[in-house]
């Protein structure tokens, strides 16, 4: 999206942008053939990668978890040291496959007061091998579930599921092979056969071999906990062909057993290397970090956390039906209502004319609705593959979009109020589109209906969209199309069923009155959007929005004058155009996020707070909301903030947490995804010690109280 915006030549060509979207979609599927989607957190970005771009039967694949850690954050080595935990990887592979353990890179020492840990930071590749079965056809479908602890000052356990599909073919090196080669080149190597390692009873690690006496530095990392004191200083002494590294024995030190680990050395030439050292004796058996999933276990759904089993029901048709039902219900949502009003008005206007006109306009409206959903789905998919964390309704997180919507609705209101008319010669900005007569007017009314409806995800719709976003691109498009058809259907019915059409009112003076009255929901909607803007961009954002509204009102008045003027109409119109452009500039320059201290409410949702409360056995009610979501605000008004519900919360000791998604918040996006949703509202009740319960998207006090009482 930002790329498309920054290229001015693209702005005028919708077709080009559409093609770009399609190209991005197909390219993303092509270029990342040997990489899974990333699991992202503010701390780490993790992928499953393959050294090969294709899979052949009986081939040995080089796989790896690729961590890109934010500065200061780290994960842990096979022996994490005094604290922490090594990552764990579970592989879902074709039956008969075998896995090797992680080939651990050499760790770094991390000292934090009396706590010494062995860590990895920055860009880390944890490679492991997968041997494919010889009885295997048509490429490999791999899934991997992994969990890791990522720490900085604090520690966060994270987990993710990854999928990788490799097409059939020779297992020649793929595009990520160089990354694997670089990791392998730096990996610890076994001691040269001319060298010998041993450890004495006091914990001195002795290396004998040519050049051992010339080591400049050596630092030992034990592969198992307790064998050495991780924090104790180590000293290197050399004589002849012998190097001695003095270690402090740990709680489980035993000179008779093998001491294994990595020795980081700087040799006589100043070259740094990592050696794998193993002294004679019985070796410790360790649990591998990589394991094969039990046969018959279902591979996980990809993403940061496994969402609960499919939105509802099974089968490919079920999400489509849900999406269709959600689309029909969208017509009843409060955000769609003002647009319905416009449409009812335009139907009333053509009521007297021929039925075929109504039919054709309804079809145009339907196409407008469906086309908008398809475009939204395509853009959403493109942005998702471009790496942004997005969800349904995200466009309302952009202050520029909110500002433009306020202006659009305000301009429609001014038109309804009669400040200006839409003349046949006036062909310009988007606000005129919905009121334009004929097929294109109906088409753009459909477009507007969809744009305004997005923040109000009706019941079923959240689940359907989440299912769509987890599905392949084609499936996603199908689901969005079903949503669109559902939303447009009532109009088609109205047009094609004579019984319904005949009930439509006849034209008369009442139409003018109705039209004027309908301006007020428009002004109301614009006022609401300015309030949303105040949450996103603060006072400066409101100022920009108000200036834009003022300029649009001025432009509308100038246009109205031009329309009534006997002469100099062109001059008035030119003036209107100039003012309109100034209004556009005001919108485009709407400031972004508020800079400065943000007030964090006591009951603000954070994953940490939720985890703390749950850990303490406190029941928690989570409300995910946004200022631009009317359904959310209505639910808060009629259900959550009522005395009955508040009293029920208090009586049962339920802590109420509110997540505000008015602006983009990755923690909330992840919480929504974890519950199979991509938009707000979302209400989840976490009973003390029980499984979380997702509440319906339309609340009544009864619904809430029943859920927390059960």
């Amino acid at each position, binding site marked *: 999206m930002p790329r498309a915006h920054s290229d001015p030549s693209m702005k005028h060509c919708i077709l080009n942008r559409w093609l770009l979207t399609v190209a991005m979609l197909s390219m993303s599927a092509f270029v990342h053939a040997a990489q899974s989607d990333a699991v992202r957190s503010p701390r780490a970005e993790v992928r499953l990668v393959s050294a090969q771009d294709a899979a052949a039967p009986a081939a040995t694949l080089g796989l790896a978890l690729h961590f890109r850690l934010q500065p200061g954050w780290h994960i842990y080595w096979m022996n994490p040291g*005094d*604290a*922490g*935990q090594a990552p764990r990887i579970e592989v879902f592979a074709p039956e008969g496959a075998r896995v090797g353990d992680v080939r651990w890179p050499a760790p770094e*020492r*991390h*000292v*934090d*007061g*009396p*706590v010494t*840990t062995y860590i990895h930071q920055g860009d880390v590749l944890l490679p492991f091998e997968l041997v494919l079965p010889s009885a295997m056809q048509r490429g490999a479908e791999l899934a991997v579930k992994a*969990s890791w*602890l990522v*720490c900085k*000052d*604090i*520690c*966060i*356990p994270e987990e993710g599921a990854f999928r990788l599909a490799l097409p059939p073919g020779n297992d020649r090196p793929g595009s990520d092979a160089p990354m694997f080669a670089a990791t392998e080149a730096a990996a610890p190597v076994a001691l040269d056969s001319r060298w010998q390692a041993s450890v004495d009873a006091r914990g001195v690690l002795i290396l004998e071999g040519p050049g051992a006496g010339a080591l400049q530095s050596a630092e030992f990392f034990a592969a198992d*906990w*307790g064998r050495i004191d991780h924090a104790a200083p180590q000293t290197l002494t050399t004589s002849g062909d012998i190097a001695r590294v003095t270690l402090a024995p740990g*709680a*489980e030190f035993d000179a008779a057993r093998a001491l294994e680990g990595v020795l980081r050395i700087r040799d006589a030439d100043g070259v740094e290397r990592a050696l794998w050292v193993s002294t004679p004796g019985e070796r410790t058996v360790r649990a591998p970090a990589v394991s094969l999933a039990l046969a018959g276990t279902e591979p996980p759904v990809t993403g940061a956390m496994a969402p609960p089993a499919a939105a509802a029901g099974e089968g490919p048709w079920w999400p489509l039906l849900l999406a269709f039902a959600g689309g029909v219900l969208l017509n009843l949502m409060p955000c769609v209502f003002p647009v319905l009003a416009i449409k009812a008005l335009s139907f009333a206007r053509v009521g007297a004319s021929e039925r075929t006109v109504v039919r054709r306009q309804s079809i145009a409206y339907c196409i407008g609705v469906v086309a908008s959903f398809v475009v939204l789905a395509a853009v959403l998919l493109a942005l998702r593959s471009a790496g942004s964390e997005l969800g349904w309704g995200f466009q309302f997180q952009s202050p520029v979009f909110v500002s433009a919507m306020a202006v659009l609705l305000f301009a429609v209101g001014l038109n309804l109020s009669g400040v200006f008319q839409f003349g046949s010669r006036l062909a310009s900005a988007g606000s005129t589109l919905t009121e334009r007569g004929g097929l294109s007017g109906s088409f753009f009314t459909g477009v507007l209906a969809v744009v305004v409806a997005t923040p109000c995800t009706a019941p079923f719709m959240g689940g359907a969209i989440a299912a769509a976003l987890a599905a392949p691109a084609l499936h996603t498009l199908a689901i969005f199309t079903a949503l669109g058809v559902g939303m447009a259907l009532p109009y088609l019915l109205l047009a094609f069923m004579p019984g319904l059409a005949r009930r439509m009112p006849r034209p008369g003076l009442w139409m003018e009155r109705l039209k004027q009255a309908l301006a007020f929901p428009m002004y109301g909607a614009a006022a609401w959007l300015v309030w949303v803007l105040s949450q996103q961009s603060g006072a400066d954002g409101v100022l920009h929005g108000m200036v834009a509204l003022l300029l649009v009102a001025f432009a509308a008045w100038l246009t109205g004058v031009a329309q009534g003027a006997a002469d100099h109409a062109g001059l008035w119109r030119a003036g209107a155009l100039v003012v309109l452009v100034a209004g556009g500039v005001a919108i485009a320059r709407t400031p972004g996020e508020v800079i400065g201290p943000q007030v964090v409410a006591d009951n603000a949702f954070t994953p*940490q707070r939720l*985890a*703390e409360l*749950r*850990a*303490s*056995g*406190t029941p928690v009610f989570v409300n995910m909301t946004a200022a631009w979501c009317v359904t959310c605000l209505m639910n808060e008004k009629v259900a959550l903030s009522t005395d009955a519900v508040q009293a029920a919360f208090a009586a049962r000791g339920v802590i109420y947490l509110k997540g505000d998604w008015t602006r983009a918040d990755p923690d909330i996006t992840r919480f929504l995804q974890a519950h199979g949703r991509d938009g707000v509202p979302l209400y989840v009740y976490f009973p003390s*010690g029980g499984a979380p319960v997702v509440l319906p998207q339309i609340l009544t006090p009864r619904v809430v109280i029943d859920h927390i009482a059960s």
Partner: protein
Amino acid sequence: MKQNALLGAGLMACAMIMPVAQAAPRVGDAAPAFTAVDSNGRSVKLSDFAGRTVVMEWTNHGCPYVQKWYSGGMQALQKEATGKGAVWLTVLSSAPGTQGHVDGASANRMMKEQGAAPTHYLLDPDGKVGRAYGAQVTPHMYVIAPDGRLAYMGGIDSIASPDVNDIPKAEPLARLAIDAVLVGKPVAKAQTRPYGCSIKYAN
């Protein structure tokens, strides 16, 4: 590395200033004596509990490994141990401004919310008690026998994970140690791997 070297130098300087050099105690040693203030503002000395079994638990309510155990397991263990006559000391060594640091009133409120039942909740913001015992992680567990010797130090159980579902699968190392000490038997596994988050000590 440079930072580590600086930190090391700083620690050495601290160690030289401290009147007593502190090495982590070993199982069988006399448990280091201490005096600390509890969440109710009372001064608590280890010697107050001479002749009794003392359990020490290092905590930090923001740590996922502590949260795992405070989903019910820790509270149950506290009640069981104190019910059999042991003294349970929950110790908070998070320095002010770091994760888990709370004042006495917040600690009391949290314990009430969680249904925690230690004998005392000790506030150790300067980390003196934690460093004396060589406590490294939360939850790090210690059991002191009635004779004042350290009988157990290590993990709360055998599976190092933040997953609450692992509790029933793990060997309950701390519980086994507490039960053994309470009946005067030797602890089979007296020193085990402690796991969890590093303690957020004052530097």
